[in-house]
């Protein structure tokens, strides 16, 4: 059974009063849940959060399912999102994503065998001038080639495991 840490619960309490309506706090609170639930929001955590916020679970679920930044499936430690929209596509974004798929031997949305990497294709991430690019967890990595992208991810894996 998922439960937020006491710090997380305090955060939820604070967010509930931060905005004019309680409902506005759903997005920030879902971020918090995702952070504490290994990067994804499980159905049971939605139930839990709805109870904690005293809102209908359908409302929380609606928000969860609407936005792409909430993961509804477990993901790897590094969530690699490769932009495949128009400017990146023209500069090799899709080839980059395909290369990464091959390199880590996973399809989009899957977790690699060691549990480290999930690759997905994202829509425009607002970095068109430095295409192709990818976002790994919170950070942007721009002006990539397939080789530099793999190097970046591998070095991040090493860093993460140390």
């Amino acid at each position: 059974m998922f439960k937020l840490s006491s710090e997380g619960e305090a955060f939820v309490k604070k967010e509930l009063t931060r905005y004019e309506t309680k409902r506005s706090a759903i997005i920030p609170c879902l971020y918090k849940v995702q952070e504490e639930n290994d990067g994804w929001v499980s159905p049971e955590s939605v139930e839990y959060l709805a109870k904690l916020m005293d809102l209908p679970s359908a409302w929380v679920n609606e928000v969860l399912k609407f936005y792409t930044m909430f993961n509804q499936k477990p993901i790897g430690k590094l969530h690699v999102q490769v932009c495949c929209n128009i400017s990146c596509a023209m500069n090799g974004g899709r080839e980059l994503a395909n290369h990464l798929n091959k390199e880590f031997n996973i399809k989009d949305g899957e977790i690699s065998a060691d549990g480290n990497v999930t690759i997905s294709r994202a829509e425009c991430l607002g970095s068109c001038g430095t295409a192709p690019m990818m976002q790994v967890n919170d950070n942007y990595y721009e002006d990539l080639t397939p080789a530099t992208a793999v190097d970046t991810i591998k070095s991040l894996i090493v860093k993460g495991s140390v």
Partner: protein
Amino acid sequence: MPKLTINGTEVEVKEGATVIEAFKKMNEDIAHYCWHPGLSIAGVCRLCMIDVEGARGPQIACNTLAKEGMVVTNQSEQIKDIVKWGMDFHLINHPLDCPICDQAGECGLQEQYMKFGQYDPEMDQPKVKKRKVVDLGEKIVLDSERCILCSRCVRFTDEVSKTKELGIFNRGDRSEVGTFADKPLNNKYSLNTVDICPVGALTSKDFRFRQRVWYLKNDDTVCNGCSTGCNVKVYYNEDGLFRVTPEYNEDVNGYWMCDEGRDIYKFANKDQRLLKAKKYDGSSWQEQTAGKAMQELHHNLFDDVKTNCSKVGVVFTGQYTNEEYADAMQTFKSLGVASFFEWNDTAENVNDFDDLLIRGDKNPNTKGLQDEAANHSGLKKLADAIAAVNSGQIDTIFVMAPENIAVYPNYQSTYEALSKAKNFIWFGANKTDGFEKTNSQNTYLIPMKSYIEKSGTFSGAKAIQKFNYVTTIVAGALTLSEAMTLFQGKEIEFELRSKPMKTLKNNHFTSNRGKL
């Protein structure tokens, strides 16, 4: 009061009304799925397009305020084209399962298609697949593939029932309506979502697959489930009644009714009814027709009642019409009987109300009974009647039993207690399983008509409402008025009803049968 012109005809509407309401007022055809007069405006189906003179382009009628001097049409070529394509957009991902869809025959998409469509589909790509036959609790089944995402049901649970179980999840053409984690949709008004669903996405488990709607006729009546008296439509055919849906009445129930009220057609069906009068003479039960039984009662009992009027009691329940009360009380008063009792098993919750429709008093006409009795000697409690029977103060008792016995938990025990009287006459619509154990040596069980089979008025909590005969289910049953007439030794005057045959819809299959 703005006046506007719609398709060339002038119409006056209320201040603040939308153009679509003006269309409805004129009975002018306008396509729409998401707009519902009892809900907020969503404006998402984009079918109620109109041309307004002087506007930039086509507008949706549901979100356009009617203004003085507006000239509106939905008959232009452009609008027809838009509606045709609007249909297309609705249909491209809609499954072709009309044959197994319960909504077929009263489906918004079918109606639109027959009016505006009748062309071959242009989409030859695979359709988006969604979940089918999702179980949403005891009452409702969801088919999200058929859903056209008009959001009516979601708005209903948000705005009317305020239970907020439903939501639309995901986005784009992956959107699916549903409850979180398929929790049951079990609020007291949940079946209204089935009514307002323009397609077969939400279907009622009770009605599902039992009949095709084109086999059913329908008629308006007043619900007798509680003292609110919602206006309802009952659907029936020669096999009996099949469902009840709400009918609009601004003063009483708006567009809605409760789920409990939808079940009350069941006791009126033949399998739940007392079909023949029954008589127990101390040794065996005999069956006879109701009229015969009443005539027999007249011969055997009428004079007896007159002479021993102080030892006669009459028990009423709040489930008969005002007219029947008046006739019955008048009859007994003329015989000198003054002991009238009220039997109401929900008496302690009479004033309960959930602020929408459901009331604690589960009798439709308690007020009518009390008002009528006030003209005579008033009503005593049922306990007094039982005590009087036990002590022998009363030896002849007439019981006007309820027809909706689900709200009478002490039905059986009351029967047994009252049957201790020497002469025991029970008027009731329900079948009498377990009634063999009578304590009286002279018991009559007289079959009564249910509210479906008679005309009359109910004095509900909100209004006094007249309702009409719908159909006959038990041929020999009587109304209380008829029973009283026969009891007095008179004859019933029959009026022949010529009721026009009404089918639910003039459906394509039957009307074009000869052309196949």
